């Protein structure tokens, strides 16, 4: 459905991976999640905040997340997102996939340096 790759930050699946990982630590609402990712990544990753939402919907639809009514830090109603059991499994698989990929990329870069 995401037809415009230029709107997708990072590479495919990276944002989803970070969302899943962040939510595994603790369930959060949208803004908290955005802030969390920015904070943890030390603002190294420039993520358009809004792009979280289509990704969240994608994960919700795939059953990796669930959402329930909750209260924001400011005491206003919002949605709290939480990992499902399937989400945890997916996260583990994706993480090892990413690690393999990074290992590969690192090696290739190392070779080209010499």
């Amino acid at each position: 459905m995401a037809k415009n790759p230029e709107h997708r930050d990072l590479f495919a699946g990276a944002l989803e991976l970070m969302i899943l990982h962040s939510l595994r630590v603790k369930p959060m609402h949208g803004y908290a999640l955005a802030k969390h990712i920015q904070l943890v990544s030390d603002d190294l990753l420039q993520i358009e905040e809004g792009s979280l939402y289509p990704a969240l919907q994608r994960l919700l639809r795939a059953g990796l997340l669930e959402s329930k009514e909750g209260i924001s830090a400011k005491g206003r109603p919002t949605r709290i997102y939480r990992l499902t059991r399937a989400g945890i499994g997916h996260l583990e698989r994706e993480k090892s996939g990413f690690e393999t990929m990074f290992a590969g990329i690192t090696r290739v870069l190392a070779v080209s340096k010499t």
Partner: protein
Amino acid sequence: MEWIRRLFRRRRYQDLSVSIQEHLQEKADELMEDGMSREEARQAARRAFGNVGLIEERSREEWVWPELDGLRADLKYALRQLWKHPGFALTAILTLSLGIGANVVVFTVLNALIVRPLNVSDPQRLYNVEHKQHGWYSQSYPDYLDFRDRNRTFDGMVAYDTMSAALGTRQTTTKNFGYLASGNYFDMLGVQPLLGRFFHANDEHGTNSAPYIVLSYDFWRARFNSDRTIVGTTVSLNKQPLTVIGIAPQDFHGTEIFYWPEFWTPITNGPLIGYSHHYLDNRSTHNPFVLGKLKAGVTPQQASDDLNSICRQLAEQYPNADYGLDARLVKPGLMGDLWGDAARNFLFGVMALALLVLLAACANLGSIFAARAADRSRELAIRLAIGSSRWVILRGALTEAILVSLAGGVAGTLLASALLQGLSRWQPFAEFPFHVVVLPDATVYVLAVLLSLGSGILFGLLPARQIQRSDAAQLMKSSMGTEVLFRRFTLREALLCIQIALCTLLVTASLVALRGMERSLQAPLGFQPQGVMLAGTDLTMAGYREEQFLPVQKRMLEETARIPGVSAVGIIDRTILGEGCCGSEGVFRSGTTDFRKELFDSRNFSISPEYLAASGMRLLSGRNFTWHDTSDSPPVVLVNVTFARMMFDSTSAVGQRFLLYGGKLPKEVVGVVEDGKYQSLTEDPQPAMFFPLTQEINDNDTVMVVRSVLPPTQLAAMLDRTLSGIDRNLPLTLHSWPDALDLAFFPARAATAALGIMGLLAAMLAITGTFGVATYSVSKRMKEFGIRVALGAAHMEMIRAALGRALMLLLSGSIAGLALGILASHLLAQIVYEATPHDPLVLAGTILTMAILGLLATWIPARRSMSIDPARLLRED
């Protein structure tokens, strides 16, 4: 269920919006805590977030594809667009309704006559048993019995024959039409009586053993006022008393689609009610249809093999009567393949034409839509620029197209239904139970919906490329840039060109068909029907024996000739081109002793000497019969040109001889007459021979052919008086010959009408298409024209500039269509008799038609381009 889900989804969207709003709020709050003003914080939060609307839409799009809500929005948008451009919407809907309506009508007829089976149980397993030779659909009754009893592949097999007879009650006697049917007829078809009972196989115990009659529902209602007490009473059929044992259900109309019988009587009554005494035991006269029901799981091929092996046994057993007997299975309902083949070919041909009409309509609409997309390029650019995806825009355009096509489909189907209602009520022959019931059913409606959707998608997608390619920045900068404009034109012009080509093709096809039909209608009939009254009677019905025929017939001739105003009167044993015409007989070379292999089959007629003068059949060489050619003098015969050529390789056959089956005395040809049509107008030239009544007595009808200058009604009254003066019991049917030919002319007339309507539709589409493009191109270039006029351009130049392209397209499309038409006509020639595209009239007609269409379509735009007032135009933006 659906509404719950929709409610849920709506809820989800609200949640999404709430989340996003909260996100922005919270961010802004934090920024304000850092010291920003409220406004600054709000804007900064939005900047960091990105395009809220777009993100919301993309988030929603994650959910369903295509969005139900998106669809609703698209529908609303499309409706608004159409509402704002009623002229466009109406043109589009009208165009489509014509295209779809035409398809619905043709398909309904196709469906009713060919696709939909007979209204009985297990209709798919029913087949008529025919001979392999085309058009030979009847069997002899003894052969039927053998087929029925020896086969291993049929659950049952029935015989039926159409007949007309004088049906009498205590009060009146009328001529009615019915079936002779074998005893197992109703049982095999699985039909149950409405009242009383049907006859069964165990009612038959040989000739004349079951004096019963079953009435059809319609006949029972019309003639007996739905009187239930009629069951059990006696009526007469050709003077023979028969007991009414039952009434058929309302929806059962026998086993031929067009011919709705008024009664059924057991076939074993054939001889009783005036058929040949040998109707049931003569193996070499072929009368009834045979209809079999395959066993479950048996293929038609297996059954056909089975029957053919029976044929071989029969040919050995009865080497004379059944020599060369073979069998073939055909779908029942249309007089075997006699009408079936022609109807099938013709209807599939017309169906193809109807689809072409629809295709032309789609091309037409495609070009209108492309023009509109071009007009709306600025709006499109704005929407793209503010972040609408191309898919959404395309979806909007498609929704609009499908909305239009569905509206067109509904209008077209309504139009078609009205037409079909009329057609179904229509009874072309007053006294003959000929019904054309063609009403749309579920299949037809499904087809109409599919066609509408299909055409909507087809022309809705045509401008898609345009949307895909459009670049917002480019469009905004130069929405009227010449380069863009001209590129736009190409698609639309190509479509118009295709459409014109299709229309020309259709116009050519219908002109070819019309000409072919006209030619076959004007082809010499071999007689002059104008001013001739036919008086048919049946001496058998009136109780005469064969040897008594001749004196009565002579008396009829003499007394009729005395009527003032009658210029000639003759007798023939069958109505040429009438219902039940004609018989045929094998002919053999003179000197033949082995009668197993005939030379060919020839139509056979018995006539009185005066027949030639009365009918107008011309004698080309030799002499006519006289009353001196009697049963004691040498046998003589008149043959037609085709017969002479086939038998003697020459047209001067006078003095030559030939033999009939088993004959010892050869027949001498004393004269050659012109060729004619005997069974149908579209038949190839058939050999025919005419015997004198005095030498070949037969038990067919006696048809008096009366040529007179008297008005038909007056002549009919006088004939009635004259003949009942001879014998009050003579049943008499009177027709003018042209009226009696209606049945023969019916298929040709129906076909001509159908093709003509197709051509007309195509022509209308060509006009609207060309008109649309010409008008559009003029309106787009009004400003340019204004400048031209201001600079002193002459009228002719203006017209050339305005319409040059449209006319060029018209011309090239017409040429392409004409070429296609000529190619396709070879196909058409197989369907329509005498259709040839190499006909100067057709070519000229097509060119003239297209030229007139071009003029009509460009007249108004041309007028507009000439009436330009530069001063006013240049002031306006």
